[in-house]
C-alpha cells in the first residue's frame, strides 16, 4: 500500500474502531447508568447547546495560558542568561531549580488564590510556574553547551562579551530553547485549565474551562464536560503546532534535527 495512504487510512480505521467500541460499551451499560458515558453524538450536541459558555471559557483559558506562557518565556530567558553567565550562581541555584521543577505546583494552587486573588491572576501565575522550569532548565543548558571551538574562535577575534552572547551563545542555544518551549507549550493549556479548576472564578466574565468543568460536573452535564476536555485538547494542539512552526522557521535551514532523509 502507498505509505502516504497508509498513514491516513490506518489511523482513520483505528479511530472508527475506537468509536465503535465506545458505542458498544455504552449500549452494553444498564440504561440508568448510560448518562455516565455520553456518546460522541451527544458530545457534539453539547457543543451546540453550550456553545456560548464554552467559547467564552475557551477565550478566558487561552488568555490565561498565553499570558502565563509568555511571562514564563520572558522570565526564563533572563534567568537562563544569568545562570549561564555565572557558574557561581548556576551551581548554587541549579539544584533548587530542579527540585522546584519536581514540585507539583497544583498543591499550592489553593494558597496561591489567597496570595494573588482568584480568577485570571491565579491562572496566569499557575501557568507561569508550570511552564517556567522546563524553559529555564533547557535554555540554560543550551547557553552553556556552546561548542568550545566556536568560543575559542570568538576569543581569537577578540569578541566582547555581548558579541559572544548574542552572536554565538544565543543562536547556538536555540535548539535547546525550542525543546523547552515545546514541553512548555503542552503544559500551558493544561496549566491554565488546572489553575482555573482550583482558582477560577465566575467574577468578571465567567471563568475558564476549568471553572466550566466544575459547573458542568455539578450539574451532571456530562456531555458538556467531555466537550470541555475536547476543547482543551484542541487548544493544546494549537499551542504545540505554533511552537513547532516557529521552531521549524528558526532551525530548519541549519539544524540537524531537520535534516532531510533524502539528502
Amino acid at each position, binding site marked *: 500500500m502507498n505509505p502516504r495512504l497508509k498513514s491516513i487510512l490506518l489511523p482513520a480505521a483505528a479511530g472508527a474502531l475506537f468509536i465503535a467500541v465506545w458505542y458498544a460499551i455504552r449500549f452494553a451499560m444498564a440504561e440508568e447508568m448510560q448518562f455516565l458515558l455520553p456518546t460522541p453524538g451527544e458530545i457534539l450536541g453539547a457543543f451546540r447547546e453550550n456553545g456560548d459558555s464554552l467559547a467564552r471559557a475557551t477565550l478566558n483559558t487561552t488568555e490565561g495560558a498565553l499570558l502565563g506562557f509568555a511571562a514564563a518565556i520572558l522570565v526564563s530567558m533572563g534567568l537562563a542568561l544569568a545562570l549561564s553567565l555565572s557558574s557561581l550562581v548556576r551551581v548554587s541555584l541549579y539544584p533548587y531549580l530542579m527540585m522546584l521543577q519536581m514540585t507539583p505546583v497544583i498543591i499550592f494552587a489553593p494558597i496561591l488564590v489567597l496570595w494573588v486573588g482568584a480568577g485570571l491572576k491565579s491562572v496566569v501565575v499557575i501557568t507561569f510556574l508550570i511552564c517556567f522550569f522546563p524553559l529555564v532548565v533547557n535554555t540554560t543548558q543550551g547557553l552553556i553547551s556552546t561548542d568550545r*571551538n*566556536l568560543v575559542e*574562535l570568538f576569543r*581569537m577575534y577578540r569578541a566582547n562579551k555581548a558579541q559572544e552572547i548574542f552572536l554565538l551563545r544565543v*543562536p547556538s542555544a536555540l535548539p535547546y530553547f525550542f525543546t523547552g518551549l515545546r514541553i512548555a507549550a503542552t503544559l500551558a493549556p493544561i496549566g491554565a485549565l488546572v489553575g482555573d479548576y482550583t482558582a477560577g472564578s465566575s467574577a468578571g466574565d465567567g471563568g475558564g474551562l476549568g471553572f466550566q468543568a466544575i459547573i458542568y460536573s455539578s450539574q451532571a452535564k456530562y456531555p458538556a464536560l467531555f466537550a470541555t476536555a475536547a476543547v482543551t485538547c484542541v487548544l493544546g494542539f494549537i499551542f504545540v503546532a505554533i511552537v513547532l512552526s516557529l521552531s521549524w522557521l528558526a532551525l530548519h*535551514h*541549519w*539544524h540537524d534535527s531537520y535534516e532531510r532523509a533524502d539528502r
Partner: protein
Amino acid sequence: MPTPPLVELRDVTKRFGAGPVVLDRINLTAGEGDFVSLIGPSGCGKSTLLRLIAGLTPLTDGGVTVCHQTPDQAAAELAFVFQEPTLLPWLTVTHNVGVPLQLRGIGREQRLAISRRVLELVRLGDRGAAYPRQLSGGQKMRVSIARALSLSPKLLLLDEPFGALDEMTREHLNEELLAIREHQAWTAFFVTHSVAEAVFLSNRIVVMAAKPGRIHAEIAVPFAYPRTEATRLSREYLDLVAEVSRLLRSVEEASQPVHA
C-alpha cells in the same frame, strides 16, 4: 636584504600550571612573506606554539612579538585557521566569512562585499548562500580559510587545517593556498603532520622534538614560487621529502620512551 622580523620568539618557555615544561626556550623569527611549517611528534607543542603567537594562551617565560607588538596588540594583524572548520552552523557561508568583520564592527554592506571577494579566492563564489551542513569537508575548510583571509591579515596561523581531509583534496587545497598567496601576501605558520605538504608549501620547515618541546632543526626549501603539480613530481622535491622524513623519524624515535 632581510626584512625586519614580523614574528619574533625569544626564549619562549611554556608550562601549564605546575605541569612539565611543554615548550623549552624556543627562538624563532619569521620575516614578511615567510611560509614556515612546523612539524614534529604529537604532543611536542606545535599547537601550543601557535596559540602563544596568537595570544590565546599566556607565556611562562620569554617574549613574543608580532609586528613589534605583543600578540594582543597585534590581534588585528593575525588570523587563525583551526583544525576543525569551526563554522557557525546557523549562518550561511557568506555570513560565516563575515564573522570576524562583524566582530570588528564593520558594516553589513562592506562585510558582504569582502565576503564575496574572499569566497572567490577560495573558489566558492557560487556557494555563498549555502549553509555549512550542505558543504563537503574540503569546502568547509575553504570557507574557514576565506574567513581567516577576510581581515587581510599579515600573519596567518594554521593548525593542521587539512589534517582531516583525503590526500587528493589536501593536494588541491595546498595548491589553492599558494595561489591565494599570489593575491594576498601574508606570512604563514603552518602546523602539519605531512612532510609532503610541508615541503610543498613552505620556504622553511621547523622540525620540533618533544619532551620538552624544542626546535630540533630548521630546513630551507629552495624551490621558487609559484609551485605547481610539476613541483611534486620533481626529483629535488622527492629528495627533500625523503630527507625531512628521515629527520622526523629520528626525532620521533628519540622521543619514544625506552622499553626494557
